[in-house]
Structure formats: C-alpha cells, structure tokens
C-alpha cells in the first residue's frame, strides 16, 4: 500500500533502505572522506608536492642502482688518492691541500666528493634512505603510542587520565631538541636493553626510538581531547547499550573517528621527525658516522663550508625539499579533511 508511511518501512528494514531509496532517486550520498578527497584533488599545489615527495622516496630507494650502475662506488668507499677525468682533464678527487672536488655533473662524483673522497651523490641517496626511514618509522611509533595513550586517558578518565596527562605534561616541559639530545646521548653511550633484546649504540633504532618518543605529547594531547568529547556522543552510548566492552568501544567506535586528525598529523610528523633527525645528527646524538644521513652530511659539511660549500648545500637542499613537500602536502590534507584543526609541531 502506497499510503504506508516511508519511515516505518525504513525502520523495519534498517539503514539499507535509505541507500536503496537514494539509488532509486539517483541521489548519491557523499561521506566526509569522499568530500575530503575531492577537496584535496582540487588542490593542485598540494598534489604536486605530494608527488614530489613520492618521487624523492623512489629516488632514494633506488640508491643502489645509481651506486652500481652510474657511480660505480659505494656510500662508504674512500677515493682519497684517486683521479677522475672531467672535460678531458685529469683531476684529483681530493686535492693535495685536502679540498675535495666539487660537482662534476657526470656519472662519477656527480655532486662532487667529500673529505674522504666519497661520492656525495651516492651518500646523498643512501643518507636519504636513512633519513626517510627514520622519519617514517619514528612518525609511525609516535602515532601508535599517541593513539594508545590518548584513547586510554580520554576513555577511562579519572586516575588513568591524571597519570597519563601528567606524564605528557612533563615530557612537554622538555624542548624536543634537548630531550632528544639527552636521550640520544644516554642511549648511544651503552645502547638499549629491552629484556632479551639489546640494541647497540650506533644502531638506527636509537634515533628512531628517541624521535618517536619526544613527539608523543604533541599528538596524544589533542587526541585525548577529542576522545573526551567523542565518548559522550550517542553512537558510543548505542554501542555500549549493545554490550560493547571498553576495547571495542575504543578501537571499534572511537578510533575511526580520530582517523582524520591522525592522518593530518602523520604527514607533518614525518616532516618534523626528519628535521629532528638532522638536528640530532648535527649535534652528534643521532645517526652515527660513517653511516650517512642528511643530518650527518650537513654536520660534516659545515666543518668544511669555507673550502667546499657544496658539502653543506647539497644535503640541506635535499632535506628542505623533502620537508617542504611534506609540509605543503600535509597542509593540503588538513585543509581537505579537517579545516578547523590547528596543528602545530615545533622542530
């Protein structure tokens, strides 16, 4: 009977009825994710820089290809006494007064050599692998820790919240560089022992662990705030009425609603983690030489900036390009998904 009210009909058949009706009438529901994706697609600048970042990652991942096929040397191979032919002229890779050769713009020593006669281009690519690996893994670690702490504090409130919030406040009181340096020095001294697992002091895991830890308050605090307001919403109450336990409420109901904030932060966290890696390496508390990273390369370059400025400029430009592309892309993602969010991280 056509006189039967549509609402009763739908109440019996559940939400699928709405979708069916929408399909019949040719109306397509657009979710927040799809809306956000559409907005992001319109932002050509953000997309361009997102593409630049992917390109940079691809180039760094392909480092062995360049090293084997083009430069014919490894990242740690010294060529102190070698010579190279540039424009038909034979030159020392490292001059007798210790000044390394500048960019040759040809396969071998494309961007010049450093003080040990190592190929800067090869080191730049291998260093990029380390910097990017540290950046992405540390950002991932920060995100996982922040989600756990934010959910626990916001969901259980009371004593759990007080304990977690105080911990975050104390961490917040240390500037990231100082806390990073202090942890970096302390761990690099004797390595880290987590039960049966021993991490040696020169492992890349040390800077990853340090950087991943110091940014936790910057994400955990906003997440906690969101959880506090979300947990009062009707959908949480509905899930609870259906008998959902705390784990399902936290990870099944609340976590999906935090996704846009987490996604926005994640891009910016990678950018800041790469910057912090460079700062820690510059201070000697990050990646240990001779293992290359953009930070250690800048550090070695600054020592010789007067005679060989390319050693400072090259890794720095690469770093700035990477961080800039992440920042612009992250900005675009934020504008698209969560225009009201105020994201701030300090380097």
């Amino acid at each position: 009977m056509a006189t039967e009210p549509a609402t009763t009909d739908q109440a019996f058949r559940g939400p699928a009825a709405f979708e069916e009706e929408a399909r019949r009438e040719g109306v397509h529901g657009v979710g927040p994710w799809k809306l956000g994706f559409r907005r992001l697609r319109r932002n050509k600048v953000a997309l361009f820089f997102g593409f630049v970042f992917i390109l940079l990652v691809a180039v760094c991942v392909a480092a062995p290809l360049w090293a084997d096929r083009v430069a014919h040397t490894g990242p740690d191979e010294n060529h102190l006494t070698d010579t190279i032919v540039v424009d038909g002229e034979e030159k020392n890779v490292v001059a007798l007064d210790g000044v390394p050769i500048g960019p040759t713009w040809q396969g071998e020593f494309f961007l010049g050599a450093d003080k040990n006669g190592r190929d800067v281009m090869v080191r730049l690519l291998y260093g990029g692998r380390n910097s990017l690996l540290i950046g992405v893994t540390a950002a991932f670690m920060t995100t996982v820790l922040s989600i756990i702490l934010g959910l626990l504090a916001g969901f259980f409130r009371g004593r759990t919240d007080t304990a977690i919030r105080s911990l975050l406040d104390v961490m917040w009181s240390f500037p990231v560089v100082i806390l990073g340096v202090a942890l970096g020095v302390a761990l690099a001294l004797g390595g880290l022992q987590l039960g049966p697992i021993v991490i040696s002091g020169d492992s890349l895991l040390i800077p990853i662990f340090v950087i991943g830890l110091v940014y936790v308050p910057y994400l955990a605090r906003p997440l906690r705030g969101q959880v506090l307001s979300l947990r009062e919403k009707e959908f949480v109450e509905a899930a609870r009425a259906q008998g959902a336990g705390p784990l399902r409420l936290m990870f099944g109901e609340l976590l999906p609603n935090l996704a846009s904030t987490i996604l926005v932060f994640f891009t910016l966290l990678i950018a800041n983690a790469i910057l912090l890696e460079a700062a820690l390496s510059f201070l000697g508390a990050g990646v240990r030489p001779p293992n290359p990273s953009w930070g250690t390369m800048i550090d070695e370059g600054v020592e010789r900036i007067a005679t060989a400025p390319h050693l400072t400029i090259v890794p720095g430009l690469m770093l700035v390009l990477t961080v800039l592309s992440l920042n612009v892309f992250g900005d675009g993602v934020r504008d698209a998904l969560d225009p009201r969010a105020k994201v701030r991280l300090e380097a």
Partner: protein
Amino acid sequence: MARFVVRRLIQMVLVLFAVSVITFLIFNVIPNSDPAVRMAGRQPTETQIEAIRREWGFDENIVVQYYTTMKKVFTGDLQSYVTQLPVDDEIKKGLPRTFALAIGAALLWMFVAICFGLYSAVKAGKFADRFLTILALIGISMPVFWIGALMNYYLGFKWGLFPNGGYVEFTEDPVDWFYHLILPWTALAILFIGFYSRVLRSNVLDTINEDYVRTARAKGLSERQIMIRHVLRNSMIPIITLWGLDFGFVLGGGAILTETVFDLQGVGQYAADSIAQLDVPPVLAVTMFTAFFIVLLNAIVDVIYAYLDPRIRLQ
C-alpha cells in the same frame, strides 16, 4: 586569584620535581652501562672511575643516587669531567649571551610575524597572501643550523657584510654587539616567523567574521582601526601563549643549534660541546636548567592569562 596562583605554583613545583626525576633517569638509569665509567669520559683510569663511583653514590640505592645528584645540581657542585671546570660557572658565563640572543630574536620574530600574518589575512587568497604562505612554509622546513651556516658563510665570510660568527660584550662596544647578533637573531627568528604568521593569519581570518567586527564596521570605524583595535587584539591571545613558551625555551639555552653555528658561546653551545665529548654533568645541568625555564614561563603565562580572562581561574 590568589588561590589560582598558589595552585599553579604547587603544580609547577610538582612538574619540576618530575622533570628532575626524568632527567636523572635518562642519564643514570636508562643507559646500559656503568654510569661511573661513562662519566669519567674517554680513556679513564681505574682510580678515577672509583672516585666518581664513590662521589656520586653509584654503589648506593637509587634514591640515594637521585638525592646526591640533585644536591650536586642545586649546590652548584657539578664539575665537567673533560675540562674539570665547574658547571655553574660556565652556565653563568654563557647566560648573558644566551639572553641577548633570546630577547632580540623573540622581539624580531614577534614583530615580523604580526606584520606578515596580518597582511596575509587582509590579502587572503591574493598573490601577496600566497607568496607569504609559501615563504612561511619554506621557513618552517629549513633546519636552523643549515640556513645559519649558509648565512654565516655567504653574508659573513664570503661577502664580508657581517661578522663571521662570534660575540662581542655589550659593555665593550654596543654597536659591534648589535652587529654581531643580527645574523643569529635572523636565523633563529625565521622558523618562528613561519609558525606564528601562519597561526596569526588563521586567527585573524576567524576573528574577521565575528559579530563585534561587523558592529565596529557598522558604526563607521576606519578599516585600520578595525583591524588593529578589534581584530588583531583578539587574534593575539593564542600567539602570546606560544610566544611565552618559545621565549622560555630559547631563554633557557634551547637555541643550541643557532648558538653553535654562530659560535656565540652561550648556554646552548656549552651543552652542544659537552654532548660532543659525551661529558654528562654539563648536559645534565643544562637539560634541567632549560626545562626549569620552560616550566617557569609556562606558569607565568598561565597566571597572566588567568588575570586577563577570569573564566580560566574557575577551571
């Protein structure tokens, strides 16, 4: 108000205590090796190690260790194991330099960020806004030690426009003092200008749509008066909070990288040099020193806030 201040002070003391415990843990407990051996620096003799072990109470339990360490920090009894110089003297020597850097840079970045942020918001969407936004993004994407080193090399060393690093006492020659600090101030300010102008821009854009701005416009105030008296003043509040925290950070020697690149010999550079030599006592002292400054300024900002906005006091 008095109750709020007292409560905030108690909270501050608790945070300071926690900060000291964490610093102690970082340096004496986390590392997977004998703290006495580490403190003795490189190539120590057996007697040196034994002396340090007894002096710091490493053979005692952890509470005694914490107490001994803190007693040393607060009585100024810390001594570098590399240079053998007392730590508190070195920090006192570096303080005027760090303060000069911090105060100048903080004023510079606040002023420039307000100009950029306001102009950007007024011209929102236009070319000037996009240009400034790109500049700000580049500014926050550059490591301060990298841009500092390049400025020092090109402007200072190669073209000779500025002094090539170093510091001159204010009492010695105020003009030369200023001249030596221009590059460090600029390098340190760039990052913060990037952040602040972006935050201010979005705050101004939010405020412009408020009812009282429309009222001000309706009663015929000039655009300049509206922007400065009504919009800017109300958009400044979050910026002031940020400023208080960041100022505390650089004041406490947090500008480690800038100080090192420009060879200012302040508290931050002292920390950086000690890190390079794995000299634990100075790093321990500076870490606590900086954290204390931040906690202190945090509390001061909160109290000023509560004074300005009565709603906060009641929380």
